[in-house]
């Protein structure tokens, strides 16, 4: 790879499960900027069955738009000097390859088995089953289950370090007896990660080393009070890359093309979110909604967490969103009356033709309705995972220790949250930015004051991986071309009577008032910040208590300051279909969300 100062032109791709995106970054007038972006369908389908075809197609589009030559046949031209045809560096992320399916085993279902499930979920896996010695099943039932499910890998845990080894060895014997085979390929052994009692390692090796591809990592529950998920998660991640992603056709070829190792898409986006949280000392929630998966990233109480909802997405997994959320929950966001049969068929057709895009307004509204539920469910899953992970927070000050939540309580706090970053096709490509804002508000229900942003053209994955090789370029492009600031959202907590005054906002000598049940926008231009006095009405709270005014900084953006006085805890939509549609239409009109038909 070239020296940093020799890197002038950067090509980066992200192979999603649906589309492959390519961006071209160039240093012009002493700063790195995004030049063009191209995309093409990801080519895992027959007749291509080679992920690099989609990559080359996306690069060809970049070539056309930028009017420069990058490809020489199927090869990326890497130039010797920082001039002429070609690029100086090529990097890529990938999430093609589909989901990871795991089984986890732990001694006690509510303890080590639950921790193991958290580790697996956190690494982006679907947990097919949790086996525990107290799960009330007979051994032969457990064995049969392991055999029939054929997971991609198994995570085995149990026992505190130095404690009794009998139970965890028993689990190993069950796995040994099941003699499990991986889902893909008859040729190789199923990976098993052992993250249990360190005293049992020899016994575990004795039982599993021959029959499985065994990996030993630190105990994920070294003591009862401690959870240490990172080593297990990291190992799952490595194996996911080696075993599952490598199944995506052409992936090995792509590895040869890049200058640095291919990074998994969620890893790259997470890196960026964590950096923002640390650098600005704020609480951040990031989301990347893709075709097959939705990743949620958070930085709360100085702790970074990431979850991957492997079966929530807008194309391949779109039907699973319906299955998990229920059709009724999706239909509640559709701002017109529609037949259930029709909606079902439309969703299924998107599943089987995942690369198509909405070309009419109602199709767009349906997709955006589904995305709200996918985002909502992904956040729900994230909340159960993002709990105080004691094992990874070794050094804390006394004040931190007092704030620490007890195990099992989520770190996610919508009231203290400062910033939401949305990414992924449906959010980044929404024709009007206010659509992205409303999707995120409806799905996440932020409370108090929260800044909303969106990844302009869905390039956070590429910038994440770029930050590992050229931080300056990544930061400059991120600030100037990637992050679109939509504006602050003001949302009081509580419920009062519909139509009553809910909140008053004063700044720059002007006062704005909003009634309960309404939404509205206060124009405030991009990059402008104001100190505002915000007074909720008696029954509502903005963080200082019911009816107590707060002084807060509001930031403008391409949308402006969005006031959501529809209530929280709970947020309600009318049960009656006609009333519901009327309400949705009213909010859509107030925020100017869609073009008038």
């Amino acid at each position, binding site marked *: 790879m070239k020296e940093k100062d020799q890197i002038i032109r950067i090509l980066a791709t992200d192979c999603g499960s649906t589309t492959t995106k390519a961006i071209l970054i160039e240093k012009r007038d002493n700063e790195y900027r995004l030049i063009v972006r191209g995309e093409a*369908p990801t080519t895992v389908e027959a007749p291509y069955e080679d992920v690099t075809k989609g990559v080359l197609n996306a690069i060809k589009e970049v070539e056309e738009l930028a009017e420069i030559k990058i490809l020489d046949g199927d090869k990326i031209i890497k130039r010797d000097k920082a001039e002429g045809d070609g690029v100086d560096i090529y990097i890529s992320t990938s999430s093609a390859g589909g989901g990871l399916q795991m089984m986890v085993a732990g001694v006690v279902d509510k303890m080590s088995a639950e921790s193991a499930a958290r580790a697996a979920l956190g690494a982006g896996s679907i947990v097919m089953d949790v086996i525990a010695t107290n799960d009330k099943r007979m051994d032969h039932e457990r064995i049969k289950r392991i055999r029939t499910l054929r997971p991609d890998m198994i995570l085995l845990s149990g026992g505190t370090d130095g404690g009794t080894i009998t139970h965890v060895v028993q689990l190993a014997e069950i796995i040994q007896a099941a003699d499990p085979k991986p889902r893909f390929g008859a040729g190789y052994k199923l990976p098993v990660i052992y993250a249990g009692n360190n005293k049992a390692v020899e016994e575990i090796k004795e039982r599993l080393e021959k029959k499985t591809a065994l990996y030993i990592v630190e105990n994920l529950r070294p003591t009862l009070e401690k959870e240490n998920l990172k080593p297990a998660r990291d190992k799952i991640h490595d194996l996911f890359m080696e075993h599952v992603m490598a199944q995506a056709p052409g992936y090995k070829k792509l590895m040869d093309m890049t200058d640095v190792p291919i990074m998994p898409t969620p890893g790259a986006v997470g890196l960026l979110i964590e950096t923002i949280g640390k650098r600005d000392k704020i609480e951040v929630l990031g989301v990347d909604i893709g075709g097959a998966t939705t990743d949620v990233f958070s930085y709360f109480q100085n702790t970074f967490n990431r979850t991957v909802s492997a079966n929530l997405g807008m194309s391949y997994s779109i039907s699973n969103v319906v299955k998990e959320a229920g059709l009724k929950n999706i239909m509640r966001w559709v701002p017109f009356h529609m037949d259930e049969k029709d909606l079902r068929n439309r969703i299924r057709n998107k*599943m089987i033709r995942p690369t198509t895009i909405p070309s*009419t307004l109602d199709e767009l509204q349906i997709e955006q309705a589904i995305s709200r539920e996918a985002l909502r469910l992904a956040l729900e899953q994230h909340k159960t995972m993002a709990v105080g992970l004691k094992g990874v927070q070794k050094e804390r000050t006394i004040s931190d220790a007092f704030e620490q939540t007890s195990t099992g309580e989520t770190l996610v706090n919508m009231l203290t949250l400062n910033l939401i970053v949305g990414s992924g096709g449906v959010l980044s490509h929404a024709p009007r930015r206010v659509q992205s804002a409303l999707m995120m508000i409806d799905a996440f229900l932020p409370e108090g004051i929260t800044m909303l942003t969106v990844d302009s053209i869905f390039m956070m994955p590429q910038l994440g991986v770029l930050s590992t090789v050229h931080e300056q370029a990544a930061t400059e492009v991120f600030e100037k071309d990637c992050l679109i600031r939509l504006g602050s959202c003001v949302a009081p907590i509580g419920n009062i009577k519909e139509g009553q005054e809910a909140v008053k906002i004063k700044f720059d000598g002007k006062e704005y008032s909003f009634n309960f049940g309404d939404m509205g926008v206060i124009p405030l231009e991009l990059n402008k910040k104001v100190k505002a006095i915000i007074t909720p009405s008696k029954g509502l709270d903005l963080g200082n208590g019911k009816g107590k005014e707060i002084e807060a900084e509001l930031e403008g953006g391409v949308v402006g300051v969005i006031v959501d006085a529809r209530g929280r805890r709970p947020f309600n939509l009318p049960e009656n279909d006609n009333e519901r549609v009327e309400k949705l239409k009213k909010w859509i009109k107030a925020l100017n969300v869609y073009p008038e038909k």
Partner: protein
Amino acid sequence: MAHSYTPGLKVTEKAIVKKERRLPLKGEVLVKVGDIVKADDIVARTELPGDVERLNLAGKLGVPPKEASSFLKVSIGEKIKKDQIIAESKGFFGLFKTSIPSPIEGIVENYSDITGMLTLRKPPKKVEIDAYVNGKVVEVIENEGIVVQTPATFIQGIFGIGGEVKGELKLVAKSPDYILTKNDITDELKGKIVIGGSLVTSEVLNECVKKGVLGIVVGGIDDKDLKDFLGEEIGVAITGQEEKGITVIVTEGFGKMTMAKKTFEILSKNDGKRASINGATQIRAGVMRPEVIVTYDIDTVVEESKHAEMGMDINSIVRIIRQPYFGAIGRVVGLPSQLQKIETEAHVRVLEFEFEDGKRIILPRANVELIEE
């Protein structure tokens, strides 16, 4: 220079088709390269390890795990019969003995002196795979399986359920837009694969199962009917394992969808011929689409048709694969390179599409698929 399009499904009257036949575990391949095989011929077999029974030996004997093995009357690896005494405690002066009979027939696999558990294993189960299609063995994957090659009619569907079946194709639909009714499913269709038109309902599917129909190839199905028929909602699109007694192949999509003329014509021509079909669908990495294969005589000459790999061009024949005009087939008459604003206000790459009647519309390139010749 247009790359934003979806590659189409294959619908070919005559092509060289290769099918990989692989065992779930390593085993024995029974044929060799060059052999001519019939669809029903067994080409590879293996044995799946038998089910396992675990016995708490130490607990039953009432001794610590480290000592229990000394009471075993059988050795590791030994074959055992059901009810055979496999362990016995000494008791006092020959009295109060604890005898432990084997709960299964099989072998003694191992004993753990940490957990005190004895693992017994039932005899292995035989697994055999057949050739699935008539053809010639062109490759042997050592200990795992083979690749069969054959000239055949090959039709890919968009979505399916159920696994591999073989049977005679029977044209039941009168036209590509025909909607099958319960009355169409007669007793004569037992053991056959029905060619339908634009729609099949759960009522008709249930009738097919009742009458012993093996499979059905149809343009569309309502998702509601699919859910009713399966008894559950399909989440992620990975199918093929359903055991509903029928394999269903949907060629166009969900809803009432007239079967593409070409697909219907090819299927009609094969009325009465034996076909191999598989509903397994996996719309993710390593994509798998359902298929209908009707093989020709092995010596049939096939001219490989020109592939759509060159991409879309003016005059390419394409099908619209999203609302509105879902399913319409027409010709590409324009490929503007600049992004254009569509009804949703999104700026996307578009193409100009001409219907068969000459009417023209602009639509996103992503919403058409090439029809492969």
